[in-house]
């Protein structure tokens, strides 16, 4: 199931959507509003979308994920409108009999959503300026570098 909302995301409700006695693993991903991006301070974010196409693409991705992996449950909700720091813009909950599938499907869903679903983020910077984020276009894409696990030997 997929959903677009202008209300705060309830992560417990997202988990309830994928709860099942057939599941041995549940993975929940939350995308949240970060305060600093490359040293620049964010005051808040605004999200807008192309509603009909965004819903269609999210539904296609859910169907594709269910085709690629044996999922017990899959729930995606994206928030639109104005978000304060720390609030979740997206929740993806997937459940499956075993954990590897749930992790893989959740990772694939968020990565693919960020490439194809017509939703856009506007940064309201703390200095009072605003800026639409368009990866590859404006040069301010919030791409986090993938780093390996932190291993401590003590």
């Amino acid at each position: 199931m997929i959903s677009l909302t202008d209300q705060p995301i309830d992560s417990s409700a997202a988990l309830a959507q994928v709860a099942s006695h057939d599941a041995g693993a549940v993975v929940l991903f939350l995308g949240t509003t970060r305060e600093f991006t490359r040293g620049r301070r964010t005051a808040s974010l605004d999200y807008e979308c192309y509603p009909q196409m965004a819903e269609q693409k999210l539904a296609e991705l859910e169907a594709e994920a269910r085709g690629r992996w044996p999922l017990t449950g899959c729930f995606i909700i994206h928030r639109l409108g104005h978000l304060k720091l720390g609030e979740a813009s997206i929740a993806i909950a997937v459940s499956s009999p075993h954990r590897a599938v749930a992790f893989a499907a959740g990772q694939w869903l968020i990565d693919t959503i960020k490439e194809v679903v017509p939703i856009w983020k506007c940064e309201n910077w703390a200095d009072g300026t605003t800026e639409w984020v368009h990866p590859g276009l404006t040069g301010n894409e919030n791409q986090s570098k993938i780093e390996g696990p932190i291993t401590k030997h003590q």
Partner: protein
Amino acid sequence: MIVNIKLFAVARQRIGHGTIEVELPADPTVSHLRAALAEQYPPLADILPHIRIAVNNEYATDTTKVASATEIALIPPVSGG
């Protein structure tokens, strides 16, 4: 023919409207649409190469036909999630 195009995010910001009209030759394709947009809406010209075009809620290629009854939108690089 005249077609209506939906705009979002930076494209809408640059034009100041959520919809624009574009004049196209007969039996147009997305390729014709791109050329017409660059000519008729100069504020979009530099970002057009980065913008995908959706026809009836699907990403189109340059050879996709743009019929008068279809819904067309400019999709700048997305940043949801």
